């Protein structure tokens, strides 16, 4: 039923406005999801924003208003910038290896190979393992004495370093384990992209005399851009959120060699019990990821079609 009402505006002109009745059924249907999002996402997010302007160590009954001090102290702290740098190195290294390698493997496993499904499964298998579990396994494999990696290197008369204990190797080792873990997922993304290609376009290009490189560069690659951009967004979000493997393998150390932004937030909150500072770092982190995602989203619109 529609309710039609007539109103007279200030100029005395009659206008007709249609008032729709509120439909309650959709709200009821949405209620479970909205309640979940409110309790587990919305309220905690608002609480973190509020706490970022306070000083609270969990011990005092109430947080004390601190204004912008947490933000000022974070932005002038070398440790915060070091954590940001490590996050950048981590994200660029993982993305730099995983995107081309994922594509390369997907390309090979898209060819008519014998037992290619078995290979696809083998490459995807690490992604199924929880990161914390594979982190523990790799901690054992990379142990300085008695770890399989250094034992094998010892057989070759090479003295392996302390992979997770050296300030020079720890971040590299964590990056390598992350690549091992996620590679299969990106292979799968590219594989689905390759399988959605329109073969008629490549055939038409061949008939027009295009070589294999030209076919790839001018015909196949442009069709894969949406997949590549999506993979880029995913890898950035995944690497910025890196925590499990660092917590398990290095605890952010040695010194601060593997302290990324999320680990830094955890450390401030639960090692130094500085909830205000940890909350301020979380807000900055969300802003940073938001800006990067926005840039990628725009890129996606430009090169990869409508992301919505």
């Amino acid at each position, binding site marked *: 039923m529609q309710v039609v009402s007539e109103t007279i505006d200030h100029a005395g002109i009659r206008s007709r406005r249609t008032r729709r009745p509120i439909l309650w059924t959709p709200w009821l249907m949405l209620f479970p999801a909205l309640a979940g999002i409110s309790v587990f996402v919305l309220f905690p997010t608002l609480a973190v924003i509020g706490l970022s302007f306070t000083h609270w160590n969990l011990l005092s009954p109430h947080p004390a208003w601190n204004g912008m001090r947490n933000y000022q102290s974070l932005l002038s702290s070398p440790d915060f910038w070091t954590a940001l740098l490590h996050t950048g190195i981590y994200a660029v290294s993982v993305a730099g290896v995983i995107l081309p390698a994922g594509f390369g493997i997907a390309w090979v496993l898209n060819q008519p190979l014998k037992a290619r499904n078995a290979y696809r499964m083998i490459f995807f298998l690490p992604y199924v393992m929880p990161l914390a579990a594979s982190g523990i396994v790799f901690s054992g494999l990379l142990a300085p*004495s008695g770890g399989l990696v250094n034992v094998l290197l010892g057989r070759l008369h090479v003295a392996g370093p302390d992979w997770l204990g050296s300030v020079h190797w720890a971040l590299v080792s964590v990056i390598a384990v992350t690549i091992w873990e996620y590679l299969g997922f990106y292979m799968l993304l590219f594989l689905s992209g390759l399988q959605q290609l329109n073969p008629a376009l490549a055939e038409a290009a061949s008939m027009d005399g295009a070589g294999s490189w030209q076919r790839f560069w001018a015909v196949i690659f442009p069709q894969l851009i949406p997949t590549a951009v999506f993979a880029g967004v995913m890898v950035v979000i995944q690497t910025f959120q890196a925590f499990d493997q660092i917590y398990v393998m290095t605890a952010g150390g040695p010194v601060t060699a593997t302290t990324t932004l999320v680990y830094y937030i955890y450390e401030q909150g639960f090692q130094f019990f500085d909830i205000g500072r940890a909350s301020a770092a979380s807000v900055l982190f969300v802003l940073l990821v938001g800006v990067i995602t926005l840039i990628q989203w725009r890129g996606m619109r430009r090169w990869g079609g409508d992301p919505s």
Partner: protein
Amino acid sequence: MTKLTKAGTLALISSVLLAGCGTAAASTPQPVKATAEHPTTVVFWYGLGGTLGQNVQTLVSQFNRTHPLIHVEADYEGSYSDSGPLQQKLLAAIVAHHPPDVAQIEVHSMPVFAATGALAPLNADLSASTIDGPSHYLPGMAVTTTIDHTTYGVPFNRSVPIIVYNASLFKQAGIASPPTTWPQLVADAKLLTRHNGSKTVYGFAPLANWWPWESQVWSAGGHIMNSQRTQASFDTPAGERVTAELASLIHAGDAEAFPGAEGWDNTMTAFYQGKIAMMEDSSGDLGYDSQQIGNRFAWGAAMMPKDPHEVVPPGGADAVIFKQSSPQVASAAWTFIQWWTAPAQTMAWSETTGYLPVQRAVLTNPAYEKFLSAHPQNKVALAELAYQKQPPQSAHYLALLQYVQDAMQSAFFTNTSVSAAMKTAAQQTDSTLSGQ
């Protein structure tokens, strides 16, 4: 489908919300007489993993078997030390007003948890107890349990830092006895270090850890905080002297320190493999050390060196009861704690693990005397008790220790000097203390 009215929708949503809230109201504990079928349940959070965790479970099972009216539910919640998971979960549980009934509290974190106001004072229980109380305990056991005249904890699994050494390597190097001073330790480490091609046996393995660091600061006459506990005071020449000597030893290749989260475990493994002649360790590891070393080589334990003072920090954990527990549960919790610390159990716990027996009475027990003559390493921890010092009782002490640990890692594993690293740690501590 029939469209719902506004009132109907609100009623449905409200009923769902009320149903959710109803659980809390329904769960309010009502005092009921405990029976063997329905014993009083005591939730106990502990923070010892691996073999030690199995030892905890064995003792708890024994308690449950012999106390049919009480059931202790022992839950491992991750490490209780180094701001570990148990401490984090406890703080979160306290803020959420849902703590367990009993928990292990690492001795340095007692001021932090006392400051929450969530711990039950135990003064009256201790006065009435025939088992627990300072007059029953070994000397120094109460240095961590009382904050501003209120006792919150009972010594549960207590330890001290010690030096563990490979006596076979000492003999090969012609050193008759373990060092008693830090300068002697440095000299011995140089003598003990042997380079044989790509294989090196290091004379010493200091831990990049705050616990032995406390002893290093105090033994040279330094102070960790000022007397008002408002400022860090460890960044002085005296406070840094021993740590700087150890850093020089590492950089000169006469000592090896193991970095990272697994640093302590890796140190122990290297020692068991004969790659290290001396290491800093906890007396709580002596049982595990003995098991791992077996007959591989002769080994011994020595007191932490002095320079010139002999001072050691307490270690391990105390047991606390939370205020929020009902009187019936708190009483059952107190029965459990007294049972655990009674001479028979504390002796069994000490013999199995290497942790100190809490009670004086154990020392005169012939069975324990026999155990000590078979395991002379354990005598060292008992001798150190006289030199235990109370760490600064500050609610911010855990943060200070974390900053110091980062500083030690910088000094041991990078080119940063001890003095620069400790200066940074002191500044970070002061900033935390001033609430900036």
